[in-house]
C-alpha cells in the first residue's frame, strides 16, 4: 500500500497527520505532506485508510498494490 496527497486538493485541515502521524506530516504552512516514500508498513494500513476516509477535501489517496 502507498499513500499520496493531491496538493491541488489539500487545504491543510491536518486530519491525515492527526490520524496517521507516522505516515503524514505538515509543511511550514500546515499543508499535508507524505513522510518518506509513502510506502505503508502493514501495521499502519488501517491508519492510512482512516486518514483518507477522514480528509474533508478527499486529498489523501491510498493506492492498494496487488
Amino acid at each position: 500500500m502507498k499513500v499520496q496527497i493531491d496538493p491541488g486538493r489539500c487545504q491543510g485541515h491536518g486530519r491525515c497527520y492527526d490520524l496517521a502521524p507516522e505516515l503524514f506530516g505538515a509543511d511550514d504552512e500546515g499543508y499535508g505532506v507524505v513522510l518518506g516514500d509513502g510506502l505503508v508498513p502493514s501495521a499502519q494500513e488501517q491508519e492510512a485508510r482512516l486518514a483518507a476516509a477522514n480528509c474533508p477535501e478527499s486529498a489523501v489517496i491510498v493506492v492498494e498494490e496487488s
Partner: protein
Amino acid sequence: MSIDERFSQETREERNAREAETGTLSEVITGPVSDWATDFSHADPAWAADPFPIQDDLRQRCPIAHTERFGGVWLPTKYDDVASIAYDTDRFSSRAIVISNFRPSPDVAPVGATPPISSDPPFHHDARKLLLPAFTKTAISRHTESTRAFCHSLIDAFDLSSSGGVVDAAQDYAKYIPMRVMADMLGLPPEDTALFAQFVEDVIGTVDLPPEERGDRIAPLFDYLYDAVRDHVENPRDDLTTHLINAELYGQKLAPEHVVGTIVLLLIAGIDTTWSAIGASLWHLAGHPADRERLVAAPETLPTAMEEFLRAYAPVTMARLVKQDVRFGDVDMKAEDWILLSFPAANRDPAHFDRADEVVIDREVNRHAAFGLGIHRCLGSHLARMELRVALEVWLSRIPSFTLADPAAVTWSTGQIRGPRALPLRIG
C-alpha cells in the same frame, strides 16, 4: 517613532464614508418566519434554539430554501450543494461573509473588509500566506500548556458553595478560553477580554438591524482595535498585531484597513466559534450521561468524540454573494443574491453520513465540514481543536459528573455562529 500615518483617525473616517456610499442597503424585514422554505431567517429565535429539524425538513422538500429578507438569500441544505458553492470561487464571492441588510460594493473584491476570509482569488492566497505559519498545528502546540493552566484556573475560581452547585459553563468557562488565547496571540491586555463578549455580540448578533444602527454597534470594536494598533506601532512586540503592521504584500506594507480587518477577523472568529464548540460539547455531555461516562472512563476516545461534536454541532455558517445570474441546481440565482452556506446543514445530510441525526461519539469515519471546505478552510482550525480538546480534557478530569441544571434556561446565540450563551450546569 511617530504614529504610522496609515492608522490615523482622519484616513479611517474618509474610508468609512467612502465605503458607506458605495454599498447597497436592503429593506429591513423582521418578524416571525411564515414558511421556512420561502421566508427563512437565520436570525429567528426558533432557528437559534434548534435549527436541525428545520434543516432536515428543508433538505427533504426543497432542498434550496429562499427568503426575501436581507435583500434575498438562498439556503442550500445538502452537503453536495454546500461543497459545490464552497469550491466555486468563480461564481460565488466571499467579499461579504456575514449576511446583513448591507451589501458592500463589488469594488471591495478581491480584498473585502476582513481579509483573508472576505477575499477572493488570487489576492486571497497571498493574504492567507501571511497568517498560515502562525496557525499550523506545531505553532499552535506552543499555546497548549498555557491554555491548560488557564482552564484549571477558571475551574479553581468556581464558587460552588454560593451558587448551589451550579455554574454557567458558557459564561464562566467556555467563553474565557478562546478570549484569553486570542488576547495572547494578538498582544491585547488580558483584562480587555471583558470587552470582547460585547464586541462578538455587536458583530454577530445584530445582523437584522438597520445598517446604520448596526454600524454604530460595531464602531466601538474598530475604535478599540485602531487604538491597539497605534499602541503596537509605538511599542512593537512579538505578536500577530505587530506581525501584521510590519507585513508586506507585493513589496508594500499592508493597507491599514487590511491590518485592522484581519485583526477583527482573528478576534471575532477566534472567539465566538470556539466558545460555541466548547459550550455545545459540554451541553451534549450534560444531557447524555452515557457519553459523558464513557469519555471520563476512556479519555483516549476524546479526539474521535470531539470530531463528532464538531460535525453534529458545527458552530459556523458562512455566506457568499452570487457574482452573476446563475442556474444552480433547480434554482435561478441572481447577481448579488446572498447564499447562507450552512456547514451545520451539510454535516447532517444523510446522503453523506450514516445516522446523520445521531451523535455517535466513536464515529471513526467523519468527513465533516465544520471548518469549511476549499480555499477558505478555517485558518484557526488547529487552534480551535487544541482549545476544544484541552477545555474538555480539563473539565472532564476536574468535573466528571454534571447535568443540565435547568434545560429551559439554556440559550443559544442567534445568527451565523451557533452555541450556548447560557448553560447552567449542576456539578456533582
